[in-house]
Protein backbone atom coordinates (compact mmCIF):
# COMPACT_ATOMS: atom_id res chain seq x y z
CA UNK A 1 0.00 0.00 0.00
CA UNK A 2 2.68 2.40 1.10
CA UNK A 3 4.68 1.40 -1.96
CA UNK A 4 1.78 2.18 -4.28
CA UNK A 5 1.36 5.61 -2.75
CA UNK A 6 5.04 6.23 -3.19
CA UNK A 7 5.10 5.35 -6.90
CA UNK A 8 2.07 7.51 -7.49
CA UNK A 9 3.72 10.65 -6.12
CA UNK A 10 6.94 9.81 -7.94
CA UNK A 11 4.87 9.47 -11.12
CA UNK A 12 3.07 12.78 -10.68
CA UNK A 13 6.38 14.33 -9.76
CA UNK A 14 7.82 13.12 -13.03
CA UNK A 15 4.85 14.45 -14.99
CA UNK A 16 5.36 17.77 -13.25
CA UNK A 17 9.02 17.84 -14.27
CA UNK A 18 8.11 17.06 -17.86
CA UNK A 19 5.58 19.90 -17.92
CA UNK A 20 8.14 22.33 -16.48
CA UNK A 21 10.79 21.37 -19.02
CA UNK A 22 8.27 21.46 -21.87
CA UNK A 23 7.18 24.99 -20.93
CA UNK A 24 10.76 26.17 -20.63
CA UNK A 25 11.65 24.73 -24.03
CA UNK A 26 8.58 26.25 -25.71
CA UNK A 27 9.49 29.66 -24.30
CA UNK A 28 13.10 29.21 -25.38
CA UNK A 29 11.97 28.41 -28.93
CA UNK A 30 9.73 31.49 -28.91
CA UNK A 31 12.60 33.74 -27.84
CA UNK A 32 14.97 32.20 -30.38
CA UNK A 33 12.49 32.29 -33.27
CA UNK A 34 13.09 35.92 -34.35
CA UNK A 35 16.86 35.41 -34.33
CA UNK A 36 16.47 32.22 -36.35
CA UNK A 37 14.18 33.97 -38.82
CA UNK A 38 16.57 36.91 -39.14
CA UNK A 39 19.58 34.71 -39.83
CA UNK A 40 17.85 32.36 -42.31
CA UNK A 41 16.12 35.21 -44.14
CA UNK A 42 19.40 37.08 -44.50
CA UNK A 43 20.96 34.03 -46.18
CA UNK A 44 18.14 33.51 -48.69
CA UNK A 45 17.72 34.89 -52.17
CA UNK A 46 14.62 36.96 -52.88
CA UNK A 47 13.18 34.08 -54.94
CA UNK A 48 13.73 31.76 -52.04
CA UNK A 49 11.89 34.17 -49.73
CA UNK A 50 8.92 34.42 -52.09
CA UNK A 51 8.53 30.68 -52.65
CA UNK A 52 9.47 29.48 -49.16
CA UNK A 53 8.10 30.56 -45.84
CA UNK A 54 9.18 32.23 -42.61
CA UNK A 55 10.83 29.19 -41.06
CA UNK A 56 12.00 27.32 -44.15
CA UNK A 57 15.75 26.94 -44.43
CA UNK A 58 17.56 28.61 -47.34
CA UNK A 59 17.75 26.30 -50.35
CA UNK A 60 21.25 27.54 -50.97
CA UNK A 61 23.15 29.85 -48.73
CA UNK A 62 23.82 33.23 -50.28
CA UNK A 63 25.78 36.08 -48.72
CA UNK A 64 24.67 38.60 -51.35
CA UNK A 65 22.25 40.25 -48.95
CA UNK A 66 25.02 40.72 -46.39
CA UNK A 67 27.35 42.25 -48.94
CA UNK A 68 24.61 44.56 -50.16
CA UNK A 69 23.61 45.59 -46.63
CA UNK A 70 27.21 46.37 -45.77
CA UNK A 71 28.30 48.22 -48.87
CA UNK A 72 25.59 49.15 -51.36
CA UNK A 73 22.07 49.16 -49.91
CA UNK A 74 20.21 52.46 -50.15
CA UNK A 75 19.24 54.29 -47.01
CA UNK A 76 17.62 57.60 -47.79
CA UNK A 77 19.34 59.13 -50.79
CA UNK A 78 22.78 57.52 -50.52
CA UNK A 79 23.46 53.93 -51.55
CA UNK A 80 26.63 53.02 -49.68
CA UNK A 81 25.28 50.42 -47.29
CA UNK A 82 25.76 50.53 -43.55
CA UNK A 83 29.55 50.51 -43.62
CA UNK A 84 29.98 54.22 -43.03
CA UNK A 85 27.32 54.34 -40.33
CA UNK A 86 28.89 51.40 -38.54
CA UNK A 87 32.17 53.31 -38.45
CA UNK A 88 30.29 56.43 -37.25
CA UNK A 89 28.78 54.49 -34.40
CA UNK A 90 32.13 53.04 -33.37
CA UNK A 91 33.76 56.45 -33.48
CA UNK A 92 31.33 58.15 -31.12
CA UNK A 93 30.35 55.19 -28.94
CA UNK A 94 33.89 54.34 -27.80
CA UNK A 95 34.90 57.84 -26.64
CA UNK A 96 31.48 58.44 -25.06
CA UNK A 97 31.72 55.16 -23.12
CA UNK A 98 35.29 55.87 -21.97
CA UNK A 99 34.64 59.46 -20.90
CA UNK A 100 31.37 58.79 -19.10
CA UNK A 101 32.85 55.80 -17.25
CA UNK A 102 35.93 57.73 -16.16
CA UNK A 103 33.93 60.69 -14.87
CA UNK A 104 31.43 58.33 -13.26
CA UNK A 105 34.25 56.59 -11.38
CA UNK A 106 35.54 59.89 -9.98
CA UNK A 107 32.03 60.99 -9.04
CA UNK A 108 31.32 57.74 -7.26
CA UNK A 109 34.64 58.06 -5.42
CA UNK A 110 33.84 61.59 -4.24
CA UNK A 111 30.29 60.69 -3.25
CA UNK A 112 31.45 57.85 -1.00
CA UNK A 113 34.99 58.57 0.24
CA UNK A 114 35.03 62.37 0.20
CA UNK A 115 31.52 63.20 1.19
CA UNK A 116 30.84 66.78 2.12
CA UNK A 117 27.83 68.58 3.45
CA UNK A 118 25.06 68.36 0.89
CA UNK A 119 26.72 65.68 -1.25
CA UNK A 120 23.82 63.26 -0.71
CA UNK A 121 21.33 65.87 -1.88
CA UNK A 122 23.48 66.52 -4.94
CA UNK A 123 23.54 62.80 -5.68
CA UNK A 124 19.74 62.66 -5.56
CA UNK A 125 19.52 65.65 -7.89
CA UNK A 126 21.87 63.86 -10.26
CA UNK A 127 19.90 60.62 -10.10
CA UNK A 128 16.73 62.31 -11.27
CA UNK A 129 18.54 62.67 -14.59
CA UNK A 130 18.06 58.91 -15.05
CA UNK A 131 14.31 59.26 -15.03
CA UNK A 132 13.40 62.18 -17.24
CA UNK A 133 11.97 61.34 -20.64
CA UNK A 134 14.62 62.69 -22.98
CA UNK A 135 11.96 64.31 -25.18
CA UNK A 136 11.98 67.11 -22.66
CA UNK A 137 15.60 68.09 -23.47
CA UNK A 138 15.62 67.54 -27.25
CA UNK A 139 14.61 71.01 -28.42
CA UNK A 140 17.00 72.98 -26.17
CA UNK A 141 19.81 70.53 -26.92
CA UNK A 142 19.32 70.93 -30.65
CA UNK A 143 19.68 74.72 -30.20
CA UNK A 144 22.67 74.37 -27.88
CA UNK A 145 24.58 72.03 -30.18
CA UNK A 146 24.05 74.64 -32.88
CA UNK A 147 25.44 77.45 -30.66
CA UNK A 148 28.44 75.29 -29.77
CA UNK A 149 29.07 74.53 -33.43
CA UNK A 150 28.89 70.77 -32.93
CA UNK A 151 25.48 70.10 -34.44
CA UNK A 152 25.39 67.04 -36.70
CA UNK A 153 28.90 65.93 -35.78
CA UNK A 154 30.62 63.08 -33.99
CA UNK A 155 31.79 65.37 -31.13
CA UNK A 156 28.17 66.51 -30.75
CA UNK A 157 26.95 62.94 -30.29
CA UNK A 158 29.79 62.17 -27.87
CA UNK A 159 28.83 65.25 -25.87
CA UNK A 160 25.14 64.35 -25.66
CA UNK A 161 25.77 60.75 -24.71
CA UNK A 162 28.32 61.67 -22.04
CA UNK A 163 26.04 64.31 -20.51
CA UNK A 164 23.04 62.00 -20.23
CA UNK A 165 25.06 58.90 -19.35
CA UNK A 166 26.78 60.43 -16.31
CA UNK A 167 23.84 59.85 -13.98
CA UNK A 168 24.00 56.12 -14.67
CA UNK A 169 27.77 55.70 -14.44
CA UNK A 170 27.88 57.77 -11.24
CA UNK A 171 25.15 55.55 -9.80
CA UNK A 172 27.07 52.37 -10.64
CA UNK A 173 30.33 53.51 -9.07
CA UNK A 174 28.72 55.17 -6.09
CA UNK A 175 26.75 52.02 -5.23
CA UNK A 176 29.88 49.92 -5.61
CA UNK A 177 32.22 52.16 -3.57
CA UNK A 178 29.68 52.35 -0.74
CA UNK A 179 30.56 48.70 -0.05
CA UNK A 180 34.31 49.43 0.26
CA UNK A 181 35.28 49.57 3.97
CA UNK A 182 36.10 53.20 4.88
CA UNK A 183 39.05 52.09 7.04
CA UNK A 184 40.92 51.29 3.87
CA UNK A 185 41.08 54.90 2.79
CA UNK A 186 41.19 56.38 6.31
CA UNK A 187 44.53 54.73 7.01
CA UNK A 188 45.90 56.03 3.74
CA UNK A 189 44.68 59.52 4.53
CA UNK A 190 46.39 59.50 7.92
CA UNK A 191 49.55 58.47 6.09
CA UNK A 192 49.16 61.67 4.12
CA UNK A 193 48.02 60.18 0.82
CA UNK A 194 46.06 62.67 -1.27
CA UNK A 195 42.87 62.54 -3.29
CA UNK A 196 44.37 61.19 -6.49
CA UNK A 197 46.93 58.92 -4.82
CA UNK A 198 44.18 57.11 -2.92
CA UNK A 199 42.09 56.82 -6.03
CA UNK A 200 44.95 55.54 -8.10
CA UNK A 201 46.57 53.22 -5.55
CA UNK A 202 43.63 51.90 -3.53
CA UNK A 203 40.31 52.46 -5.25
CA UNK A 204 41.15 51.75 -8.88
CA UNK A 205 42.67 48.32 -8.19
CA UNK A 206 39.38 47.36 -6.51
CA UNK A 207 37.29 48.46 -9.47
CA UNK A 208 37.79 46.21 -12.52
CA UNK A 209 34.43 44.47 -12.12
CA UNK A 210 32.41 47.66 -11.78
CA UNK A 211 34.32 49.26 -14.65
CA UNK A 212 33.32 46.32 -16.85
CA UNK A 213 29.70 46.68 -15.73
CA UNK A 214 29.69 50.38 -16.50
CA UNK A 215 31.44 49.97 -19.86
CA UNK A 216 29.02 47.25 -20.97
CA UNK A 217 25.97 49.19 -19.84
CA UNK A 218 27.09 52.39 -21.53
CA UNK A 219 28.18 50.56 -24.67
CA UNK A 220 24.82 48.85 -25.01
CA UNK A 221 22.85 52.01 -24.28
CA UNK A 222 24.79 54.28 -26.61
CA UNK A 223 25.23 51.79 -29.45
CA UNK A 224 21.49 51.04 -29.35
CA UNK A 225 20.38 54.65 -29.04
CA UNK A 226 18.06 55.90 -31.74
CA UNK A 227 16.45 59.04 -30.32
CA UNK A 228 19.58 61.21 -30.02
CA UNK A 229 20.92 59.82 -33.28
CA UNK A 230 17.83 60.65 -35.29
CA UNK A 231 17.40 64.13 -33.79
CA UNK A 232 21.00 65.33 -33.66
CA UNK A 233 22.48 63.89 -36.84
CA UNK A 234 21.63 63.55 -40.48
CA UNK A 235 22.89 62.02 -43.71
CA UNK A 236 26.40 60.64 -43.60
CA UNK A 237 26.82 61.31 -39.90
CA UNK A 238 24.00 59.07 -38.76
CA UNK A 239 24.63 56.22 -36.36
CA UNK A 240 23.86 52.69 -37.45
CA UNK A 241 20.46 52.44 -35.75
CA UNK A 242 19.15 55.44 -37.68
CA UNK A 243 20.65 54.20 -40.94
CA UNK A 244 19.07 50.78 -40.40
CA UNK A 245 15.68 52.35 -39.89
CA UNK A 246 16.11 54.45 -43.03
CA UNK A 247 17.27 51.45 -45.01
CA UNK A 248 14.21 49.46 -44.02
CA UNK A 249 11.92 52.38 -44.86
CA UNK A 250 13.56 53.23 -48.18
CA UNK A 251 11.32 51.81 -50.84
CA UNK A 252 12.95 51.51 -54.23
CA UNK A 253 10.90 48.95 -56.08
CA UNK A 254 11.14 45.45 -54.64
CA UNK A 255 11.27 45.07 -50.88
CA UNK A 256 14.45 43.18 -50.09
CA UNK A 257 13.71 41.46 -46.81
CA UNK A 258 16.98 39.54 -46.91
CA UNK A 259 18.95 42.80 -47.05
CA UNK A 260 16.82 44.25 -44.21
CA UNK A 261 17.56 41.25 -42.03
CA UNK A 262 21.29 41.23 -42.82
CA UNK A 263 21.38 44.94 -41.95
CA UNK A 264 19.51 44.34 -38.70
CA UNK A 265 21.97 41.63 -37.68
CA UNK A 266 24.92 43.86 -38.53
CA UNK A 267 23.45 46.60 -36.34
CA UNK A 268 22.81 44.17 -33.50
CA UNK A 269 26.03 42.16 -33.68
CA UNK A 270 28.33 44.32 -31.49
CA UNK A 271 25.98 44.39 -28.50
CA UNK A 272 25.05 40.74 -29.01
CA UNK A 273 28.74 39.88 -29.03
CA UNK A 274 29.30 41.78 -25.79
CA UNK A 275 26.33 39.97 -24.25
CA UNK A 276 27.68 36.56 -25.23
CA UNK A 277 31.20 37.30 -24.02
CA UNK A 278 30.31 39.11 -20.80
CA UNK A 279 26.72 38.16 -20.03
CA UNK A 280 27.34 38.00 -16.30
CA UNK A 281 28.43 41.63 -16.16
CA UNK A 282 25.62 42.63 -18.49
CA UNK A 283 23.10 41.26 -16.02
CA UNK A 284 24.84 42.92 -13.12
CA UNK A 285 24.55 46.28 -14.83
CA UNK A 286 20.85 45.76 -15.46
CA UNK A 287 20.14 44.79 -11.88
CA UNK A 288 22.44 47.44 -10.42
CA UNK A 289 20.45 50.03 -12.32
CA UNK A 290 17.29 48.37 -11.07
CA UNK A 291 18.18 48.61 -7.41
CA UNK A 292 17.73 52.33 -7.54
CA UNK A 293 15.25 52.12 -10.37
Amino acid sequence: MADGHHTQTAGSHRVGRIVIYALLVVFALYYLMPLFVMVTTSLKTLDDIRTGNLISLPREISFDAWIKAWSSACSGVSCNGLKGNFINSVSFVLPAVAISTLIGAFNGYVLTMWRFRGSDVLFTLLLIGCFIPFQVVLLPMAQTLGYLGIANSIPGLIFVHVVYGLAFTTLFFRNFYVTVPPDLTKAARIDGAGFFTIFWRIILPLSPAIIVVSVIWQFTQIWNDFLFGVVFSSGERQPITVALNNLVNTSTGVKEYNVDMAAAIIAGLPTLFVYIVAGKYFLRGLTAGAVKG
Partner: protein
Amino acid sequence: MTETGASGKLVHPQRRFGDYIENALPKVVLGPTLLCALIFVYGFILWTGWLSFTDSRLLPRYELAGFVQYVSLFQNERWWTALGNLAIFGGLFIGVCLVTGLLLAILLDQRIRAEGFLRAIYLYPMALSFIVTGTAWRWILNPGLGLQNLVRQLGFESFTFDWIVTPGMSIYTVVIAGAWQSTGFVMALFLAGLRGVDDAIIKAAQVDGASSTRIYTSIIIPSLRPVFFSSLIILSHIAIKSFDLVMALTGGGPGFSSDLPATFMYTFAFNRNQIGLGAASAMIMLMTVVAILVPLMYAETRRGHHGR
Protein backbone atom coordinates in the same frame (compact mmCIF):
# COMPACT_ATOMS: atom_id res chain seq x y z
CA MET B 1 53.95 58.12 10.17
CA THR B 2 55.69 60.34 12.75
CA GLU B 3 57.89 61.79 10.05
CA THR B 4 54.99 63.06 7.99
CA GLY B 5 53.42 64.50 11.11
CA ALA B 6 56.65 66.34 11.98
CA SER B 7 57.23 67.67 8.50
CA GLY B 8 53.62 68.76 8.42
CA LYS B 9 54.27 71.01 11.40
CA LEU B 10 57.43 72.39 9.88
CA VAL B 11 55.81 73.65 6.69
CA HIS B 12 52.74 74.96 8.40
CA PRO B 13 51.53 77.68 5.99
CA GLN B 14 52.03 75.50 2.94
CA ARG B 15 50.25 72.64 4.63
CA ARG B 16 47.22 74.83 5.23
CA PHE B 17 47.14 75.83 1.61
CA GLY B 18 47.50 72.15 0.69
CA ASP B 19 44.61 71.29 3.00
CA TYR B 20 42.50 73.89 1.34
CA ILE B 21 43.16 72.39 -2.07
CA GLU B 22 42.63 68.92 -0.65
CA ASN B 23 39.26 70.00 0.76
CA ALA B 24 38.16 71.71 -2.40
CA LEU B 25 39.29 68.92 -4.70
CA PRO B 26 36.27 66.62 -4.26
CA LYS B 27 33.93 69.50 -5.04
CA VAL B 28 36.01 70.51 -8.03
CA VAL B 29 35.88 66.95 -9.37
CA LEU B 30 32.13 66.66 -8.87
CA GLY B 31 31.54 70.18 -10.16
CA PRO B 32 31.39 69.61 -13.92
CA THR B 33 28.88 66.78 -13.56
CA LEU B 34 26.66 68.87 -11.31
CA LEU B 35 26.92 71.79 -13.67
CA CYS B 36 25.91 69.51 -16.53
CA ALA B 37 22.92 68.20 -14.60
CA LEU B 38 21.93 71.72 -13.62
CA ILE B 39 22.08 73.04 -17.17
CA PHE B 40 21.27 70.07 -19.37
CA VAL B 41 18.62 68.46 -17.19
CA TYR B 42 17.02 71.10 -15.00
CA GLY B 43 17.78 74.14 -17.17
CA PHE B 44 16.59 72.37 -20.30
CA ILE B 45 13.37 71.29 -18.62
CA LEU B 46 12.68 74.95 -17.80
CA TRP B 47 13.66 75.93 -21.35
CA THR B 48 11.27 73.39 -22.86
CA GLY B 49 8.63 74.51 -20.37
CA TRP B 50 9.06 78.10 -21.52
CA LEU B 51 8.87 77.08 -25.20
CA SER B 52 5.62 75.26 -24.48
CA PHE B 53 4.07 78.59 -23.50
CA THR B 54 5.06 80.33 -26.74
CA ASP B 55 3.72 80.10 -30.26
CA SER B 56 7.03 78.83 -31.67
CA ARG B 57 6.73 77.05 -34.97
CA LEU B 58 9.70 76.57 -37.29
CA LEU B 59 12.00 78.62 -35.04
CA PRO B 60 11.85 79.05 -31.29
CA ARG B 61 10.28 82.31 -30.16
CA TYR B 62 10.32 83.47 -26.61
CA GLU B 63 7.31 85.80 -26.23
CA LEU B 64 4.88 84.08 -23.93
CA ALA B 65 1.53 83.22 -25.44
CA GLY B 66 -0.20 81.49 -22.55
CA PHE B 67 -1.68 78.06 -22.77
CA VAL B 68 -2.40 78.06 -26.53
CA GLN B 69 -0.17 75.04 -27.21
CA TYR B 70 -1.69 72.97 -24.44
CA VAL B 71 -5.19 73.88 -25.64
CA SER B 72 -4.43 72.88 -29.21
CA LEU B 73 -2.61 69.76 -27.97
CA PHE B 74 -5.70 68.53 -26.18
CA GLN B 75 -7.87 69.43 -29.15
CA ASN B 76 -5.65 67.34 -31.37
CA GLU B 77 -7.19 64.00 -32.28
CA ARG B 78 -3.78 62.51 -32.93
CA TRP B 79 -2.60 63.38 -29.42
CA TRP B 80 -5.62 61.60 -27.92
CA THR B 81 -4.84 58.57 -30.06
CA ALA B 82 -1.28 58.67 -28.74
CA LEU B 83 -2.47 58.90 -25.14
CA GLY B 84 -4.96 56.07 -25.63
CA ASN B 85 -2.24 53.95 -27.22
CA LEU B 86 0.07 54.68 -24.31
CA ALA B 87 -2.59 53.36 -21.93
CA ILE B 88 -3.13 50.21 -24.03
CA PHE B 89 0.54 49.63 -24.68
CA GLY B 90 1.67 50.50 -21.16
CA GLY B 91 -0.95 48.35 -19.45
CA LEU B 92 -0.49 45.28 -21.65
CA PHE B 93 3.28 45.57 -21.95
CA ILE B 94 3.75 45.85 -18.19
CA GLY B 95 1.18 43.13 -17.47
CA VAL B 96 2.59 40.63 -19.97
CA CYS B 97 6.18 41.27 -18.87
CA LEU B 98 5.37 40.87 -15.17
CA VAL B 99 3.29 37.71 -15.57
CA THR B 100 5.59 35.97 -18.06
CA GLY B 101 8.70 37.13 -16.24
CA LEU B 102 7.46 35.77 -12.93
CA LEU B 103 6.34 32.50 -14.53
CA LEU B 104 9.71 31.96 -16.20
CA ALA B 105 11.55 32.79 -13.00
CA ILE B 106 9.48 30.29 -10.98
CA LEU B 107 9.97 27.60 -13.63
CA LEU B 108 13.70 28.24 -13.73
CA ASP B 109 13.88 28.08 -9.94
CA GLN B 110 12.89 24.37 -9.91
CA ARG B 111 16.47 23.11 -9.96
CA ILE B 112 16.56 22.98 -13.74
CA ARG B 113 19.37 21.47 -15.72
CA ALA B 114 20.98 23.91 -18.15
CA GLU B 115 19.47 26.82 -16.23
CA GLY B 116 22.25 29.17 -17.25
CA PHE B 117 21.78 28.32 -20.91
CA LEU B 118 18.00 28.86 -20.82
CA ARG B 119 18.43 32.10 -18.89
CA ALA B 120 20.83 33.35 -21.53
CA ILE B 121 18.24 32.61 -24.25
CA TYR B 122 15.45 34.47 -22.46
CA LEU B 123 17.67 37.45 -21.83
CA TYR B 124 19.50 37.98 -25.13
CA PRO B 125 16.81 40.20 -26.71
CA MET B 126 17.69 42.78 -24.05
CA ALA B 127 21.07 43.25 -25.73
CA LEU B 128 19.43 44.25 -29.02
CA SER B 129 18.21 47.74 -29.81
CA PHE B 130 14.50 48.37 -30.20
CA ILE B 131 15.27 49.26 -33.81
CA VAL B 132 16.67 45.79 -34.50
CA THR B 133 13.77 44.18 -32.61
CA GLY B 134 11.25 46.28 -34.52
CA THR B 135 12.85 45.45 -37.87
CA ALA B 136 12.79 41.72 -37.13
CA TRP B 137 9.18 41.67 -35.92
CA ARG B 138 8.05 43.86 -38.78
CA TRP B 139 9.22 41.13 -41.14
CA ILE B 140 7.72 38.33 -39.04
CA LEU B 141 4.35 40.05 -38.71
CA ASN B 142 3.99 41.20 -42.28
CA PRO B 143 0.92 39.41 -43.66
CA GLY B 144 2.27 38.78 -47.16
CA LEU B 145 5.28 36.58 -46.48
CA GLY B 146 5.45 36.35 -42.71
CA LEU B 147 3.60 34.44 -40.03
CA GLN B 148 0.21 34.62 -41.74
CA ASN B 149 1.66 33.12 -44.90
CA LEU B 150 3.39 30.39 -42.90
CA VAL B 151 0.22 29.27 -41.13
CA ARG B 152 -1.71 29.36 -44.42
CA GLN B 153 0.92 27.13 -46.02
CA LEU B 154 0.43 24.70 -43.16
CA GLY B 155 -3.13 24.23 -44.38
CA PHE B 156 -5.13 26.87 -42.51
CA GLU B 157 -6.14 28.75 -45.65
CA SER B 158 -8.34 31.32 -43.96
CA PHE B 159 -5.90 32.17 -41.16
CA THR B 160 -5.55 35.93 -40.87
CA PHE B 161 -3.02 37.79 -38.79
CA ASP B 162 -2.64 41.27 -40.23
CA TRP B 163 -2.65 43.41 -37.09
CA ILE B 164 0.44 45.30 -38.19
CA VAL B 165 -1.42 46.85 -41.15
CA THR B 166 -4.77 47.22 -39.40
CA PRO B 167 -5.59 50.56 -37.75
CA GLY B 168 -6.63 49.99 -34.16
CA MET B 169 -4.73 46.70 -33.99
CA SER B 170 -1.18 47.73 -34.87
CA ILE B 171 -0.53 48.99 -31.33
CA TYR B 172 -0.91 45.39 -30.14
CA THR B 173 1.98 44.32 -32.35
CA VAL B 174 4.09 46.87 -30.49
CA VAL B 175 3.12 45.06 -27.28
CA ILE B 176 4.18 41.70 -28.79
CA ALA B 177 7.60 42.94 -29.85
CA GLY B 178 8.15 45.01 -26.70
CA ALA B 179 7.29 42.12 -24.40
CA TRP B 180 9.55 39.80 -26.40
CA GLN B 181 12.43 42.15 -25.74
CA SER B 182 11.86 43.03 -22.08
CA THR B 183 10.45 39.90 -20.42
CA GLY B 184 13.87 38.32 -19.91
CA PHE B 185 14.94 41.29 -17.87
CA VAL B 186 11.96 41.00 -15.54
CA MET B 187 12.63 37.26 -15.33
CA ALA B 188 16.19 37.97 -14.20
CA LEU B 189 14.99 40.39 -11.52
CA PHE B 190 12.43 37.90 -10.19
CA LEU B 191 14.92 35.06 -10.25
CA ALA B 192 17.34 37.09 -8.14
CA GLY B 193 14.44 37.83 -5.78
CA LEU B 194 13.46 34.15 -5.55
CA ARG B 195 17.01 33.19 -4.69
CA GLY B 196 16.89 35.68 -1.86
CA VAL B 197 13.82 34.17 -0.16
CA ASP B 198 14.66 32.68 3.24
CA ASP B 199 14.87 28.89 2.94
CA ALA B 200 14.03 28.34 6.61
CA ILE B 201 10.50 29.76 6.19
CA ILE B 202 9.85 27.54 3.18
CA LYS B 203 11.14 24.46 5.01
CA ALA B 204 8.91 25.23 7.98
CA ALA B 205 5.88 25.53 5.70
CA GLN B 206 6.76 22.22 4.02
CA VAL B 207 6.98 20.55 7.42
CA ASP B 208 3.53 21.95 8.21
CA GLY B 209 2.30 20.17 5.10
CA ALA B 210 1.63 23.21 2.88
CA SER B 211 1.42 22.38 -0.83
CA SER B 212 3.99 23.97 -3.12
CA THR B 213 1.27 26.04 -4.82
CA ARG B 214 0.25 27.32 -1.40
CA ILE B 215 3.87 28.08 -0.51
CA TYR B 216 4.23 30.13 -3.68
CA THR B 217 0.98 32.07 -3.40
CA SER B 218 1.13 32.86 0.30
CA ILE B 219 4.84 33.01 1.13
CA ILE B 220 7.16 33.39 -1.82
CA ILE B 221 5.26 35.71 -4.17
CA PRO B 222 4.26 38.18 -1.41
CA SER B 223 7.90 38.37 -0.36
CA LEU B 224 8.81 39.48 -3.91
CA ARG B 225 6.99 42.79 -3.43
CA PRO B 226 10.16 44.88 -3.75
CA VAL B 227 10.95 43.19 -7.07
CA PHE B 228 7.42 43.92 -8.31
CA PHE B 229 7.95 47.55 -7.42
CA SER B 230 11.28 47.97 -9.15
CA SER B 231 10.05 46.05 -12.22
CA LEU B 232 6.97 48.24 -12.32
CA ILE B 233 9.08 51.39 -12.14
CA ILE B 234 11.43 50.25 -14.89
CA LEU B 235 8.71 48.93 -17.19
CA SER B 236 6.51 52.01 -16.91
CA HIS B 237 9.57 54.11 -17.58
CA ILE B 238 10.31 52.08 -20.74
CA ALA B 239 6.66 52.32 -21.82
CA ILE B 240 6.42 56.10 -21.50
CA LYS B 241 9.72 56.63 -23.31
CA SER B 242 8.92 54.12 -26.07
CA PHE B 243 9.88 55.64 -29.36
CA ASP B 244 12.35 53.50 -31.29
CA LEU B 245 10.19 50.40 -31.26
CA VAL B 246 7.18 52.14 -32.78
CA MET B 247 9.36 53.92 -35.33
CA ALA B 248 10.90 50.66 -36.51
CA LEU B 249 7.85 48.43 -36.26
CA THR B 250 4.94 50.48 -37.55
CA GLY B 251 6.30 53.99 -38.06
CA GLY B 252 3.27 55.08 -36.02
CA GLY B 253 0.97 53.73 -38.70
CA PRO B 254 -1.20 52.81 -40.42
CA GLY B 255 -1.94 56.52 -40.55
CA PHE B 256 -1.17 57.58 -37.01
CA SER B 257 -3.07 54.73 -35.37
CA SER B 258 -0.08 53.38 -33.40
CA ASP B 259 1.38 56.75 -32.39
CA LEU B 260 2.68 57.11 -28.84
CA PRO B 261 3.37 60.45 -27.09
CA ALA B 262 7.09 60.06 -27.87
CA THR B 263 6.51 59.64 -31.61
CA PHE B 264 3.95 62.45 -31.55
CA MET B 265 6.49 64.77 -29.94
CA TYR B 266 9.16 63.86 -32.49
CA THR B 267 6.85 64.28 -35.46
CA PHE B 268 5.53 67.68 -34.44
CA ALA B 269 8.75 69.15 -33.06
CA PHE B 270 11.11 67.98 -35.79
CA ASN B 271 9.12 67.06 -38.90
CA ARG B 272 6.17 69.42 -38.83
CA ASN B 273 7.92 72.49 -37.45
CA GLN B 274 5.53 72.87 -34.54
CA ILE B 275 8.12 73.51 -31.85
CA GLY B 276 5.64 74.94 -29.34
CA LEU B 277 3.29 72.00 -29.67
CA GLY B 278 6.19 69.54 -29.48
CA ALA B 279 7.44 71.24 -26.31
CA ALA B 280 3.97 71.08 -24.76
CA SER B 281 3.69 67.35 -25.51
CA ALA B 282 7.17 66.78 -24.02
CA MET B 283 6.11 68.57 -20.84
CA ILE B 284 3.01 66.38 -20.57
CA MET B 285 5.27 63.33 -20.95
CA LEU B 286 7.47 64.59 -18.14
CA MET B 287 4.46 65.17 -15.94
CA THR B 288 3.19 61.66 -16.71
CA VAL B 289 6.52 60.20 -15.64
CA VAL B 290 6.44 62.24 -12.44
CA ALA B 291 2.80 61.35 -11.74
CA ILE B 292 3.49 57.63 -12.10
CA LEU B 293 6.98 57.23 -10.74
CA VAL B 294 6.89 59.53 -7.72
CA PRO B 295 4.06 57.67 -5.92
CA LEU B 296 5.64 54.32 -6.81
CA MET B 297 9.05 55.33 -5.49
CA TYR B 298 7.51 56.96 -2.44
CA ALA B 299 5.62 53.75 -1.68
CA GLU B 300 8.80 51.74 -2.14
CA THR B 301 10.98 53.86 0.13
CA ARG B 302 8.26 54.02 2.80
CA ARG B 303 7.92 50.29 2.75
CA GLY B 304 11.71 50.06 2.91
CA HIS B 305 11.72 52.08 6.15
CA HIS B 306 8.91 50.30 7.95
CA GLY B 307 8.61 46.91 6.33
CA ARG B 308 11.86 45.02 6.58
